[in-house]
């Protein structure tokens, strides 16, 4: 069920924004809002997922609290987004737990470590090279294929349900191009004129969050590409790991891991400095835990590579794969979903 009290509050605030329009140039939310003849709950969830929480409109707002109009658009839209993600998740209960509670994410991470330590102890291969000396390729596939495919399947169903809610129709090439361009440049964190957003410095603009997010996004995509390329090389070319440094998986994975590490580290640091009241305050812990989980994935991956040939490899391998496992399994139930919903919102025809 759509949380009516949240969309009613968003609608109340949108009404005031629509009469003011000073923030029109900050991001995509406002021009779309002003073009709507009437606000509906579905429109509100669409706009909520379009919002990147840059907070420009809050610090510029003449009606921000303690004004009696009490406008805090970044917060109400964050709450509404959060509600969308939890409502469309399968099953909802898992989303409610992991979105909100950092402790739950940490527990999942520890469970991931335990699973991998157990697997490596129980399924120790007779022979193998590199990592496969500790856990065979087949055992890895056995663990990670379902951990990867099942969550993505669930996520796809959730997105279909959201797409229907916001009335998204057929997607054209133009929609895809517009979305891709916006994501690649993080246009909605640019503040409209490249000055950035109002995150860690209050009423002052800064591009720190935009850059940290770019590092995280591009770093993540490079790591993902590294794994994909390695899979193709394994099955297609019969070229099995370990790969030398001058090979596509390493050339993508090492810089990607470094970017991801720096990006998530910066995002966590920025989050400590930003006002939690301008976001969905109740899920602060879950969001922070998710950023730290991604940081753990990248940091342990780099540590594992650095430890090549040492006695630390088996332990680091279990820790890294455990983190990757937790990350995969939690994908539909953590902040990770924001990217997919945001792409959907950006893709929806105007």
């Amino acid at each position, binding site marked *: 069920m759509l949380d009516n009290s949240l969309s009613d509050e968003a609608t109340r605030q949108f009404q005031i924004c629509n009469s003011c329009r000073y*923030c029109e140039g900050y991001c995509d939310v406002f021009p779309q809002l002003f073009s709507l003849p009437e606000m509906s709950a579905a429109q509100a969830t669409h706009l909520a997922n379009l919002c990147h929480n840059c907070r420009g409109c809050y610090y510029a707002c003449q009606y921000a609290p303690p004004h009696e109009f009490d406008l805090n658009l970044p917060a109400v839209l964050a709450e509404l987004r959060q509600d969308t993600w939890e409502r469309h998740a399968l099953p909802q209960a898992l989303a409610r737990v992991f979105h909100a509670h950092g402790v739950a994410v940490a527990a999942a991470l520890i469970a991931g470590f335990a699973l991998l330590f157990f697997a490596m102890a129980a399924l120790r291969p007779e022979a193998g090279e590199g990592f496969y000396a500790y856990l065979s390729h087949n055992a890895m596939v056995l663990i990670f294929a379902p951990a990867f495919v099942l969550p993505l399947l669930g996520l796809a169903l959730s997105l279909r349900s959201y797409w229907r809610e916001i009335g998204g129709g057929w997607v054209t090439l133009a929609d895809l191009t517009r979305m891709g361009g916006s994501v690649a440049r993080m246009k909605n964190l640019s*503040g409209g004129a490249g000055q950035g957003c109002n995150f860690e410095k209050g009423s002052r603009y800064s591009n720190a969050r935009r850059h940290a997010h770019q590092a995280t996004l591009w770093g993540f995509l490079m790591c993902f590409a590294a794994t994909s390329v390695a899979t193709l090389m394994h099955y297609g070319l019969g070229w099995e790991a370990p790969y030398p440094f001058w090979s596509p998986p390493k050339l993508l994975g090492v810089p990607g891991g470094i970017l991801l590490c720096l990006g998530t580290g910066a995002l966590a640091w920025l989050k400590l400095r930003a006002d939690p009241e301008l976001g969905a305050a109740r899920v602060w812990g879950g969001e922070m835990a998710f950023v730290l989980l991604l940081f753990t994935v990248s940091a342990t991956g780099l540590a594992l590579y650095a430890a090549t040939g040492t006695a630390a490899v088996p332990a680091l391998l279990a820790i890294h794969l455990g983190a990757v496992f937790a990350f995969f399994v939690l994908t539909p139930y953590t902040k990770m979903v924001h990217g997919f919903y945001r792409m959907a919102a950006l893709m929806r025809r105007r």
Partner: protein
Amino acid sequence: MSQYDVVVIGGGNAALCAAIEAAEAGADVVILESAPEHMRGGNSRHTRNFRCMHQGPLSVLTDTYDEAEYYEDLLRVTKGQTDPELARLAIRESETCLPWMERHGVIFQGSLSGTLSLDRTNAFFLGGGKALVNAYYACAEDLGVTIRYNAEVRHIDLSEGRFSAAVLADGTRVEGRAVVLASGGFQADLDWLTRAWGPEAANFLIRGTPYNRGVVLRDVLDQGAVSVGDPTQCHCVAIDGRAPKFDGGIVTRLDCVPYALVVNRDGARFYDEGEDVWPKRYAIWGRLVARQPDQIAYAITDQKAQGLFMPPVFAPVKADTIEGVAQLLGLSGDSLRQTVAEYNAACRDGTFTPGVLDGLATDGLDPPKTNWARPLDTPPYYGYMLRPGVTFTYLGLKVTERAQVQGAHGLLPNVWAAGEIMAGSILGQGYLAGFGMTIGTVFGRIAGQEAAAYVG
């Protein structure tokens, strides 16, 4: 007790421009802002654009807007009540101000949707006036300006004909070698407004900050400073009657009048609702409503008018009958029904064209409705409440072209003024969109430069 080179009284656009200029010239500057930090910026926090002269495209501004045209626009709204020297100075200097504003952190955006008519004359601030104010405070902080919030100045010490200190509400003296007075008008002091305008003013709404109480203006006038501007007048427009008493800002505007029938508390019409398009009439309606009993009026529309004007922030009352609307508005159903019946009977056939004077006038009605007169006959009917909303007051300090304040015995050697506190010399009547920010920026900068040069 503290000692500065330049003391700036006020914390809005003019004050900030003065402080930044003085600090850039090397002066040790303090800003005394009476509001708390979250309410800083005076009425500048409610503004949205800057009217700017330009030869050819400039930043977000298209085409050309030259001095002659700008000055003509000003003469039209002020009906000649302006100081030509000061006005032309403000207009000419506006062109160099825009790049200066950008260099100091102000970001402009193309004209907002629904304001296309201003894209040649007015540069809009991205995020509005509060974003501009934020940018200037950040800039002033970086320049080492001391900023004191909740610092209400009660008295300017001008003994021996020169400024020596500003005295705060708690008795603290902030001493300085020069002062810039940029603390706005007196529109938020309802007692003063009532004395100046009449008892009706108690029912006016104040569109801007509650901190512009004119304390410094009064204090300096009492010490013999020469005044300009009509002391009894304020810029007063018709706004939504349910707006907050203070600080409602732009969203409380109500644009339905040309497509409505407007009655007073007794259910009687009192003026031609269709005399002209709303941007040219909203200021007149402030005064019209102010003259009605209880300073209140009600606009009634039917279903046909929905979508013809900007949606108001407060939802209108809605009913299927005229009596129903009257009841919801607290009016007599009989009177309103009779007024509507007389009006409907006076409407004639013709082509209704919103947005332009369509000449669709009533026949034999007093007062007439001379455009957009269609019968109220399609339920549901909607009711809106109107009250006068005060934007600013006209009384101010007389200044020279260098923004220096005129005392009882000649120019005060170390006192300058900028912004609303001296705008009455240039804007003696009416209002020109974005011109308040022009006056504040131009004279704020001059005052800051002059004060710094004096102490330097």
